[in-house]
């Protein structure tokens, strides 16, 4: 019977609400007793963050192992994936996360792949700038012209001959942009506040599977 109680989502939302409000109120109630309990709660959450990293990894391992087992599309790449993960984890367990093999994998596979991944966007953004920044409407004219002013101001050769350009760029970024960005940040904060409130009230059912 007790398993029925633990199944109910209300208990889960009660735990979320209690912890959320405790952390929220701790922020303003400067009580040593409260502070040290909070420091422990925060530490437990950080510790669970470690479990979350492992769970995410195992979830990926399970998915790719299933792909290999069922010989689905690209199963050999999934086999390669599983092999590398296992080599990385077991060599890490034996030699420690800074051992020779884990360091080798980090420096020669993880670092080059992740460091290069975003740089391919340099090509996409140049062709997007060429193909799509057209003065088709007032809005696109504003967006395109501000973009080109920033690009020109970031171009050292142009700023030699037109030094005021950096001042024009800095004005656009520090005045109208700050106005727009601040309005957006305040709006986003409003969205975040009500997301938290709905979760605490147990209305955000989709957040807990």
């Amino acid at each position, binding site marked *: 019977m007790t398993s029925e109680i633990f199944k109910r989502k209300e208990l889960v939302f009660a735990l979320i609400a209690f*912890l959320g409000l405790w952390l929220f109120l701790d922020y303003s109630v400067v009580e040593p007793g409260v502070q040290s309990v909070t420091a422990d709660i925060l*530490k437990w959450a*950080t510790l669970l963050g470690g479990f979350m990293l492992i769970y995410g990894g195992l979830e990926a391992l399970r998915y790719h192992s299933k792909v290999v087992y069922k010989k689905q599309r690209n199963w050999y790449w999934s086999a390669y994936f599983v092999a590398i993960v296992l080599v990385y984890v077991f060599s890490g367990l034996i030699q420690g*996360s800074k051992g020779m093999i884990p360091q080798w994998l980090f420096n020669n596979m993880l670092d080059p792949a*992740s460091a290069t991944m975003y740089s391919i966007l340099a090509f996409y953004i140049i062709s997007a700038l060429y193909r799509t920044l057209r003065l088709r409407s007032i809005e696109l004219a504003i967006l395109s012209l501000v973009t080109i002013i920033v690009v020109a101001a970031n171009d050292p050769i142009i700023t030699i001959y037109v030094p005021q350009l950096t001042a024009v760029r800095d004005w656009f970024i520090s005045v109208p942009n700050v*106005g*727009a960005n*601040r309005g957006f*940040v305040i*709006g986003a904060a409003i969205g975040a506040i009500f997301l938290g409130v709905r979760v605490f009230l147990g209305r955000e059912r989709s957040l807990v599977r």
Partner: protein
Amino acid sequence: MTDVLTLFGTYIAIIITLAVYSYIIKETDLFRFAEYSFLATSIGWAILLGLDTINNVGISAISKGRYDYIIPIILGLLLFTRFSGKLWYLARYPVAFILGVGLGVFMRGQIHAMFLQQIAATVITPVTVDSLIILVGVLSVLVFFYFTREHKGALGYVSTLGRYFLMVGFGATFGNTVLYRINLAVGRIIFILRALGLLP
């Protein structure tokens, strides 16, 4: 032995760098090699970090006599019930703990730093033309995202003004993204040229 390994490693790094760039021409098996290497090593590294965290934060506390830290370890192990058919709902509790604490920390920060401080910062003295433009920008963007009333008449003008302010913000971001993406590419090309000995 080790310098053969490091040499081999450098070549693998160059191959992966070029494999990622091959994505631009066409998505080939070369890119898949880089993609799956990236996916696998980032997962492997995350698992090791997770284990280190549990050891440094959890186990070390218990070894120092804090036996109450066995509770979060058990709570963490409950996460793996998601893999079991029967007890899957128990995994909700560690997720709830992280979510509850995360939301509490996130929301107090959002209200104080991102709501109150950003509002107060909109009107810093001395009041200049620029700070008035910022004020008009903030107000018009807030009105732009207002949904309960039809944007007609005066409200329509303010909302359109808000949209134009947003366009300036997007232009500033687009221009600076060109700078950032190109710099990321430069950093990788410097790596390749240096590995090939063409740069000091």
